[in-house]
């Protein structure tokens, strides 16, 4: 119904992305946001949760795919299902808690319609009241709606809302190597979620956060206040060794431009990419006793070494998550409106690895990604002031031209480039444009042209 009120057509979306620049409407327009939820977040594979959040049959947790409320639940066949969190009767959310166990079936808290954990309708109280009404011909009688498709990739649950669309493997291609590396870092090849995520609200468009994950020219500027000050204090204390944890984690943000240039950026088709091809700010974390031994025992020494030598920094799984393999962290950027984004930052325990690794990961999460984190404060200030600045009519285009080749780029092949390129941001907008428009109507003019 809403669609009839949305006036933008596919060619309007196309015209907002012009190689090295994007129109500010992509960040500020409510209609663009509505279209993103309806098309981009329906046509792509979006992260839902980790299977360890729902380990036993009947375990569920509630979250959102874009603006869509969903439930991740462990079905009686042990598979993980993703259902729309909406009673087919009058719309009440079926699961109200953030997490819980529902047993063998869900029961709506409003009128007690009940459903199996794959969504199928089980029973309606006083059902004879619907006899002869034709209810059985409506989709409302079929039960809770499942999302279009679900994939459990090494414990990470992704969903595609649309029934038809690109396959999981075809969408992510070799970018899955970053999740592989994160999971392989467990001697058992298994991760487990460690506690609830940090929840950090940003009054800015979700794409600003996603772009910032591969923005390697901002740390030494925006984070001078935290990382620069950390270095200063440490020197004043006489450069004590071992360095305090804050120095190991925060100070590398002050690395010089050359460090980030040499780090490299890899892009994959469909908007995925990562920083830290050759090295990263996570390369010099001190080794943890017993860890390499456990890895060697599990994988053999040379394979263990090659797993741990990979030090990818941030991997973007387009559209809306970032994964840090070396520290087992995942950040989920959930768009709530054009100018409001909820960031949930999860950490995972490497099964059979020493606990010190988890302690460092938890420390990283609170030092960098908490609403109380000084590094987080630096970043949020930039995003929110950008959201305000973009309202200026002085200039309408946002520039993404750093290391642009000067002609149209080919994003259909993997590429490795200088670590300060903005190619990954352009790659995201290439995918954004394509997955937005595949299911959008063309304007009537071009439809007529196409017919001729």
């Amino acid at each position: 119904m809403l669609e009839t009120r949305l006036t933008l057509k596919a060619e309007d979306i196309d015209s907002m992305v012009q190689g090295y620049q994007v129109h500010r409407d992509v960040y500020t327009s409510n209609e663009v946001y509505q279209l993103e939820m309806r098309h981009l977040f329906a046509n792509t594979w979006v992260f839902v949760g980790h299977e360890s959040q729902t380990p036993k049959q009947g375990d569920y947790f509630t979250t959102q795919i874009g603006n869509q409320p969903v439930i991740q639940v462990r079905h009686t066949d042990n598979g993980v299902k993703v259902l729309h969190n909406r009673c087919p009767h009058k719309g009440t959310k079926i699961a109200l808690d953030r997490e819980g166990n529902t047993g063998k079936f869900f029961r709506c808290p409003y009128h007690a319609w009940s459903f199996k954990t794959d969504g199928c309708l089980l029973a309606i109280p006083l059902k004879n009241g619907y006899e002869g009404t034709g209810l059985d011909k409506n989709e409302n009688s079929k039960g809770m709606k499942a999302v279009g498709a679900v994939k459990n990739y090494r414990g990470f649950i992704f969903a595609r809302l649309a029934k038809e669309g690109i396959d999981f493997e075809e969408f992510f291609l070799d970018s899955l190597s970053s999740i592989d590396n994160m999971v392989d870092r467990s001697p058992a090849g298994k991760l487990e979620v460690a506690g609830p995520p940090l929840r950090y609200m940003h009054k800015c468009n979700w794409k600003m956060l996603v772009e910032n994950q591969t923005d390697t020219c901002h740390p030494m500027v925006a984070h001078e206040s935290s990382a620069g000050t950390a270095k200063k204090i440490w020197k004043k204390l006489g450069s004590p060794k071992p360095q305090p944890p804050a120095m190991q984690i925060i100070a590398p943000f002050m690395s010089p431009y050359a460090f980030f240039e040499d780090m490299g950026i890899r892009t994959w088709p469909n908007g995925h990419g990562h920083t830290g091809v050759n090295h990263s700010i996570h390369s010099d974390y001190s080794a943890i006793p017993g860890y390499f031994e456990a890895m060697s025992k599990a994988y053999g020494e040379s394979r263990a070494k090659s797993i741990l030598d990979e030090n990818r920094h941030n991997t973007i799984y387009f559209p809306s998550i970032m994964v840090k393999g070396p520290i087992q962290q995942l950040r989920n950027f959930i768009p709530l409106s054009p100018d409001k984004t909820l960031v949930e930052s999860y950490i995972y325990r490497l099964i059979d690895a020493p606990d010190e690794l988890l302690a460092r990961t938890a420390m990283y999460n609170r030092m960098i990604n908490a609403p109380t984190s000084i590094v987080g404060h630096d970043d949020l200030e930039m995003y929110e002031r950008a959201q305000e600045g973009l309202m200026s009519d002085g200039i309408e285009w946002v520039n993404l031209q750093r290391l642009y080749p000067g002609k149209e780029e080919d994003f259909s092949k993997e590429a490795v480039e200088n670590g300060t390129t903005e190619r990954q941001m352009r790659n995201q907008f290439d995918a954004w444009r394509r997955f937005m428009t595949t299911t959008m109507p063309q304007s009537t003019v071009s439809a007529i042209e196409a017919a001729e």
Partner: protein
Amino acid sequence: MSDISKDDLIDFIYAEARMLDEGHYDDWLKLWIPDGHYWMPLDYKQDDPLFVTSLMYEDMFMLKLRVERLNGARTFSQKPKSRCHHVIQRPFVDKLDNKEGHYVTNTSMHYVETRLDEQFLLALTATHELKRIKGSLRIANKRVDLLNSDAAFGNIQLLP
């Protein structure tokens, strides 16, 4: 060495809140023993500071960094500066052990922080573990439990 009284403990908690409100961070840092930690759990009734995420679990280096950053020339999130305000209830004294020089207080507070046109309120309970060092009270550990610790927040830049 003179004993610490219940009033001494209560005065100490009030004085600390005033230092934070007035931004006297150098004095505030001097209240701490060197291996103290400021802990703000993420989960309601969380009992583990290390192996799950917290909002804060900070040693003296981090706290020093945190307050020094507030005055940095390029600390853009503090242009303009935030201000804060504590309204505190009379602390409960849960432990008063003058033999060991060890004390625990439990204080309910309303904490308000503001910057630009935004202002927010946090209801919280602060648990102070205090020690008597050379006759005066020092903070050994401070735990701050936000009533809504599991809610999504924007920036919390100063110290509840």
